[in-house]
């Protein structure tokens, strides 16, 4: 077998694994979010389809979406309308290329890993603007502009918050950052960075309280207002995929990735495989983000931008300065 065929085969296998993960993930998270939100709101949530816990509800939704008529409204910008769901979905999947699920469970450990993540996720904004503009609807245009302003405002603190772990680990590779946290998770020395990252990440995800671009009470549904059926579900899929991606990156950078907690004895560490640690931490963060979403009201767009530019940005810069000052101390203490 020629070498290129082997490479291609591996690539296809890995790609389908990622895609499978993303799809299964979305199915699970839809169910989980509905049940979780229901419990918060003193309801029971879905329970009919797949008794007694409604675990087949997402499957039913998928079939419903698949069987829906594909409606393209009359006066949309057709090409952009059709392309936008794909453009939003592709980066959502591509992020997973560099996510280290385990010591060997990674598609490609790029040496610019974290930079790659930032670069790929910035495409989400373009997709949202495409969708909002193509729909030929005033609400969706307003929503798209909100999304663009929001992503520009929060991309900066997000990337700056990442710099802390990168400085401590001395590498951009995600696998390298995880390995560097063997002795101590970075959340201990980077609490500020973690909070900034999570906040900015929630804003990037358009999750409440930062879900300005899909504020259903103001903009009805936001940029995806004219979409329905499978096209709409691509936005949904991308949203949940990004949710897990942000949580996974946060886990990687601050919670030690697939590493077991450093304070556990080695015998205990060996019991649970790394990938379980990784997924447990990731879904814990996902649940925290959901919890916040179902608790807080939504901020207003000017407050959102003020918060991003006037609070998160200085804080993340301060965090970098602090990390630089603390770096020699930490080295001397032997913590890193």
């Amino acid at each position, binding site marked *: 077998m020629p070498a290129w065929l082997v490479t291609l085969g591996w690539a296809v296998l890995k790609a389908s694994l990622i895609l499978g993960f993303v799809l299964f993930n979305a199915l699970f998270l839809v169910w989980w979010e509905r049940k979780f939100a229901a419990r918060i709101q003193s309801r029971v949530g879905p329970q009919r389809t797949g008794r007694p816990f409604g675990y087949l509800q997402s499957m039913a939704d998928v079939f419903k979406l698949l069987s829906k008529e594909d409606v393209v409204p009359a006066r949309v910008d057709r090409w952009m309308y059709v392309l936008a769901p794909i453009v939003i979905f592709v980066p959502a999947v591509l992020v997973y290329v560099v996510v280290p699920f385990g010591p060997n469970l990674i598609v490609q450990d*790029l*040496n*610019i890993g974290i930079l790659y993540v930032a*670069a790929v996720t910035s495409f989400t*904004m*373009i997709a949202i*603007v495409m969708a909002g503009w193509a729909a030929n609807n005033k609400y969706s*245009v307003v929503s798209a502009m909100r999304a663009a302003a929001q992503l520009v405002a929060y991309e900066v603190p997000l990337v700056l918050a990442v710099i802390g772990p990168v400085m401590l680990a001395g590498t951009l590779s995600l696998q390298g950052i995880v390995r560097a946290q063997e002795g101590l998770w970075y959340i201990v020395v980077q609490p500020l960075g973690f909070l900034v990252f999570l906040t900015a990440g929630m804003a990037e995800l358009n999750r409440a309280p930062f879900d300005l671009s899909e504020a259903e009470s103001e903009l009805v549904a936001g940029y995806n207002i004219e979409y329905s059926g499978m096209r709409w579900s691509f936005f949904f899929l991308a949203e949940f995929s990004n949710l897990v991606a942000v949580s996974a990156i946060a886990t990687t950078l601050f919670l030690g990735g697939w590493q077991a907690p450093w304070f556990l004895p080695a015998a205990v560490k060996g019991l649970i495989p790394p990938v379980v640690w990784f997924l447990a931490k990731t879904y814990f963060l996902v649940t925290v983000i959901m919890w916040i979403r179902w608790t807080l009201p939504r901020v207003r767009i000017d407050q959102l931008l003020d918060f991003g530019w006037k609070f998160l940005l200085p804080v993340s810069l301060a965090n970098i300065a602090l990390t630089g000052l603390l770096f020699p101390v930490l080295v001397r203490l032997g913590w890193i």
Partner: protein
Amino acid sequence: MTGLQIAFLALSAVMLFAAWKVVTSDIIVHAALWMVLSFVAVAGIFLTLHAEFLFAVQLLVYAGAITALVIFAIMLSDIRELRGEGEPAGAGLGRRVRRLVSRRLGLAPAAVAVGFAAVMYSVYRATPWPGLPPGDPAPSTLAIGRELFGTYVVPFELASIVLLVAMVGAIVLTLREGGREKEEKRP
């Protein structure tokens, strides 16, 4: 012809086509999105040259941030221009031809483009390009960091200061008298 060469040619073709569409699109938002495609193709070329850092930065800065700014500029500008009013009437090929020979939309930009190409070509001819040894290049991120904060730290910092001054100036210029009325009322 190696795979890398094929990739380079394909990406170049995409980039040139996208650039062509940027200048010929009827709808300015389409032009902006074609520009994104062109940026992405450039990033791909960086990747074929093993410049991963530049690849990521190209995507992050150009395809992400610059595009957002361009889209903001479009949205803030006059809606009648967005609809293509004030351009040669008609449709299809005739309109395109008329546009190419019009002074404002065709000839002047073409002259500028030719002039720019000539300058670039002469620069290209005049520069003594260092020959890089083939093989796997050193990790580019590290090298760029060393160069930026070592050899060229003074120009780098100067550039930062100039940019900072420009930013402050822009904010001062756009700041309206007294800010928004509503904000003053806020407790």
